[in-house]
């Protein structure tokens, strides 16, 4: 593992063994409808409260991901989960039904990347064998908590975004994959004094800009090396602002995509500036990005989830809205294949290099690492992984 700046890159990238996305009614009418593992058109899920319904969405996500990985819940070393409800109760109450260590996270809509990043770190560090990351949101629960009762007659502004009713879950393990988590960059809080509660995209764009800039500074990669750079839910306005901010910072992007603009069709679905919510990036990651990586349609992507960290209280108290964005570097292949040439140059320098470096090079699998099942690890490494 190697850390530079805020970016951690894994020498042994963990794989994402399985992923599942659950969507609701509006998602079933959207462009990704066929990609979801499960669509629940009854927003209530037959429950009495919207909050319980959101827990059901999260539960279906976790159960489906476990089923696809052919794992029992007790195979999980931990579940990293969070949502938008106060005190993250959707996730906590979902985990009430699973006897697995639970780490509740609050990153608002950035939770999925945060959870995936943390899970990947603990797996890559050899402390866990299976860790799940999941996140959910529910339009009705978010509306009644952050805005107004559902039957209230209010008009949405053009910059408003529609909270996704859905969940996404990904399970990380040392074996398994593609796709692989090559690295993570943990975000920093950035507040550019946006006070408009109806313009979350504008509030979060600076944080996304910050994390992206740090990733490229830390890794010396170039944006062109990636098939796409995804953000969670900047929406129409936030995406525009992100691109402008990055351009001003000397990093124009041609391959930016936003999950909030992918999950819904803005032209036909009355979602104003696009989708949002903790479940937005989670669902799009698990039904759109990860499958494409596994199938090899995408080779390397950066995936960010973006969050707005205000509460109703801070907003009413006149505070501005801080944002945060966490980044996960995903690839369809193990880094060995991409770095084969670099390694060969390395081997030459190694002859006079440190013993540590020699062990490092010797531990790597052979020249042609293939996608699919991981090559056998060296015994020394295996011990370290346990």
């Amino acid at each position: 593992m190697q850390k530079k700046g805020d970016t951690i890159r894994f020498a042994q990238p963990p794989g994402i063994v399985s992923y599942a996305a659950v969507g609701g009614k509006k998602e079933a009418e959207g462009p990704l409808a066929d990609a979801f593992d499960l669509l629940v058109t009854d927003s209530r899920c037959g429950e009495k409260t919207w909050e319980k319904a959101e827990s059901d969405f999260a539960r279906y996500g976790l159960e489906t991901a476990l089923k696809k990985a052919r794992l029992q819940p007790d195979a999980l070393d931990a579940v990293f989960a969070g949502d938008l409800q106060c005190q993250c109760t959707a996730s906590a109450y979902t985990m009430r039904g699973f006897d697995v260590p639970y780490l509740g996270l609050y990153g608002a809509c950035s939770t999925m990347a945060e959870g995936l990043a943390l899970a990947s770190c603990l797996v890559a560090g050899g402390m866990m064998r299976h860790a799940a990351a999941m996140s959910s949101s529910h339009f009705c629960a978010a509306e009644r908590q952050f805005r107004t009762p559902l039957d209230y007659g209010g008009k949405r502004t053009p910059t408003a975004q529609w909270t996704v009713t859905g969940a996404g879950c990904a399970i990380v393990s040392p074996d398994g994959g593609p796709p692989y988590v090559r690295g993570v960059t943990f975000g920093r809080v950035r507040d550019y004094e946006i006070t408009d509660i109806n313009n979350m995209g504008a509030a979060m764009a600076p944080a996304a800009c910050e994390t992206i800039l740090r990733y490229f500074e830390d890794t010396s990669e170039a944006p062109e090396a990636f098939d796409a750079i995804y953000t969670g839910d900047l929406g129409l306005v936030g995406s525009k602002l992100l691109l402008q901010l990055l351009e001003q910072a000397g990093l124009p992007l041609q391959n930016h995509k936003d999950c909030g603009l992918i999950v819904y069709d803005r032209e036909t679905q009355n979602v104003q500036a696009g989708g949002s919510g903790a479940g937005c990036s989670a669902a799009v990651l698990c039904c759109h990005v990860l499958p494409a990586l596994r199938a090899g349609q995408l080779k390397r992507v950066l995936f960010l989830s973006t969050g707005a960290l205000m509460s109703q209280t801070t907003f009413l108290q006149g505070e501005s809205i801080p944002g945060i964005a966490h980044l996960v570097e995903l690839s369809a292949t193990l880094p060995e294949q991409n770095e084969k040439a670099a390694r060969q140059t390395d081997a030459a320098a190694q002859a006079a290099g440190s013993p540590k470096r020699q062990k490092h090079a010797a531990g790597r699998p052979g020249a042609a690492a293939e996608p699919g099942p991981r090559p056998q690890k060296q015994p020394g490494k295996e011990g370290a992984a346990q």
Partner: protein
Amino acid sequence: MRPDPKKYDEMCKRASPPSPLLKDCVWAFCIGGAICLLGEGLRRLYASMGLTLTDAATLTSATLIALSAVTTALGWYQKLAAKAGAGTLVPITGFANAVVSPAIEFRNEGFVTGVGAKMFIIAGPVIVYGMLASVAWGVIYYFLRPLMGG
């Protein structure tokens, strides 16, 4: 390298699509006008049924409130308001919607602690500040009255 927050505000304004002002106003005008028209019709109807002007007015308000409550409970008021904006917000039907919608929504939190406690969570300020204004006016009027010969 990182932008200045003041400049960012300018960028946000330019990047944010403005509300379609004309369309919003036309909708507000038509729906707001229509609700008032309905009120006028009801008022005439009640007056023609023999009620005094004040009673007719009270009954008109009560009827509009009842209509708003029913359409709110059915989910129709929200659909109309999503287009009509101020056209459904400003009339008294908007007030009723603001009372009925939290009552429905917070039922899950109990009739006392949900419905009872949160019913006026949206309309509360209208009552508080309306009353305050009336108190202020009442006090002023008390002192002005002898001068006005009223």
